[in-house]
């Protein structure tokens, strides 16, 4: 009975109804979205603004309130040799991690795309480390790589091979951190690549088979070009993640030996909470953010330019 009286029947006054309904719809939309939007305003927008203004102040005060110094923090960063070292180390780490992750991930995905026996089991196993907390990965490898109490050196000793000082070795430490990172994350790359591979139509392969293509040629000329967007996606995500890596130095090396593993995020953390220089730390964070944006945009532009031949 209420629908007869409430006037919500389609034939009545068609000109007025859409406007009222659109208003009502928008009202409810904003109402329901309000909590989430408020959240993003408070916890994403506001911190960015605070960070920006904080970076323009010097000082050690807890609330980041210190004298206004304009761009001095940024200038200080440019003049600080440690800043450049940290940047270099982080970029090198990032390249090792992303390169290793993409190459290994792609190789494994190509293998797991074939109808091998026990394929599902392998897929699950390879994804496994990604599901565990990175803290665990870092702690376990820290123990295994310990020169005195670690089983890796113990195994070497039993095999009569020379012992290594692993994480204390300035040339080995950073590559080791990269290797651990790849170990942890390669499963995720494999899953993403597998999804991409599933999207390639089989007829392309069949046509190439008829033309007598070798397996290598198939991969190089069909699979990889078609997977380019997926590979790009993985590279970008990997770059962003590796540039903000923190746990590896924090848990495994404390930035050592001799600051050879002092990654950027770890450096920022120390500047902020050990040196208590919030303004300078904010500037450092912003620099990295700008760098990430540049790199991401740069890669996307490059790929678009590549595709337009």
């Amino acid at each position: 009975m209420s629908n007869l009286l409430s006037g919500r029947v389609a034939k009545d006054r068609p000109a007025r109804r859409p406007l009222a309904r659109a208003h009502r719809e928008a009202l409810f939309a904003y109402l329901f979205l309000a909590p989430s939007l408020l959240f993003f305003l408070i916890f994403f927008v506001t911190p960015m603004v605070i960070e920006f203004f904080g970076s323009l102040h010097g000082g050690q005060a807890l609330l980041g309130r210190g004298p206004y110094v304009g761009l001095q923090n940024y200038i200080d960063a440019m003049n600080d040799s440690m800043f450049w070292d940290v940047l270099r180390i982080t970029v090198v780490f990032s390249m090792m991690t992303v390169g290793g992750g993409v190459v290994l991930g792609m190789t494994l995905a190509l293998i797991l795309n074939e109808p091998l026996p026990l394929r599902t089991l392998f897929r699950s196993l390879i994804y496994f480390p990604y599901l565990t907390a990175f803290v665990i990965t870092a702690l376990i490898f820290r123990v295994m790589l310990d020169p005195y109490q670690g089983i890796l050196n113990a195994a070497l000793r039993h095999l009569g091979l020379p012992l290594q000082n692993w994480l204390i070795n300035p040339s080995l430490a950073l590559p080791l951190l990269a290797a651990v990172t790849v170990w942890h994350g390669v499963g995720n790359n494999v899953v993403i690549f597998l999804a991409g591979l599933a999207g390639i139509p089989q007829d392309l392969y069949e046509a190439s088979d008829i033309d007598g293509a070798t397996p290598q040629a198939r991969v190089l000329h069909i699979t990889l070009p078609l997977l380019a967007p997926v590979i790009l996606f993985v590279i970008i995500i990997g770059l962003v993640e590796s540039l903000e890596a923190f746990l590896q130095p924090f848990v495994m090396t404390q930035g050592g030996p001799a600051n050879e593993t002092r990654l950027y995020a770890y450096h920022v953390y120390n500047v902020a909470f050990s040196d208590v220089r919030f303004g300078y730390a904010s500037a450092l964070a912003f620099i990295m953010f700008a760098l990430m944006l540049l790199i991401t945009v740069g890669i996307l532009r490059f790929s678009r330019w590549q595709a337009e031949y």
Partner: protein
Amino acid sequence: MRRRSSPIQYLPSYTLLIAITILIVVPFIYMLSLSLQSEKEALGGDPPFLPAHAMFSNYAVVFKTTPFGRFVLNSIVVAGGITLAHLVLDPLAGYVFAKFRFPGREPLFVAVLSTLMLPFFVRMIPLYIMMASIHWLDTYQGLIVPFITSAFGIFLFRQFIRPLPDELLHAARIDGCGEIGVYIRIVLPQIRPAMAANGLLTFIFQWNEFMWPLLATTTETMRTIPVGLTLFTREYYALWNLMAVGAVVLFFPGLLVFLLFQRFLVRSMVLSGFR
């Protein structure tokens, strides 16, 4: 169907796979083994791979003599609280983006998605300052509230809710169901799988989370497992075998979820298009 060739050609691939699998599985087995080793075995000069006798007593020791039990409680409260909040807020926002038309919808959605691109460490210092200034450090609310929703969850639900037939919603409205009623009685029951997936993923990620709990807590009694474990190892004498106990406990929910939902998890990750 491709021409089937002999399985022998897979031998090099298989060898690589087996090698990788060993590389992956060994550290986990070692972690388990380490948690059952005696102090002499773990810290002595010649660490074995497996303990001579499995010392299950290590688990009791950890819970009785260290604040680890408190860490577990904190982790449960924090991860659980965040998950509940997500399950309330994410589907609602996803529903609005999926089924409502209103001015500014597309730009707003893009803006929300763009928050995913923001690395945490750009926000972390201001967040710390904000929480410090309202005295929310070392509190549960300080650990929970900054994470009560995320663009990832909203995106997930938007994708899941979109295919729901609009007629269903219209019919409910015509029958006099209020908007909230439509949401609770019609939409929510249809998206139970997505709720389960989002709930599990959120819980696991928050259970494993390290950075924010590190910054937001300064006292031992408020620390969550990942932070408590790491700082414990660094500040006190590093008893690796006991630390391994903590690692196993931290690891356990992830393993459980993985075993129960492995195919589902992998597929939902792929479907959502993000990691």
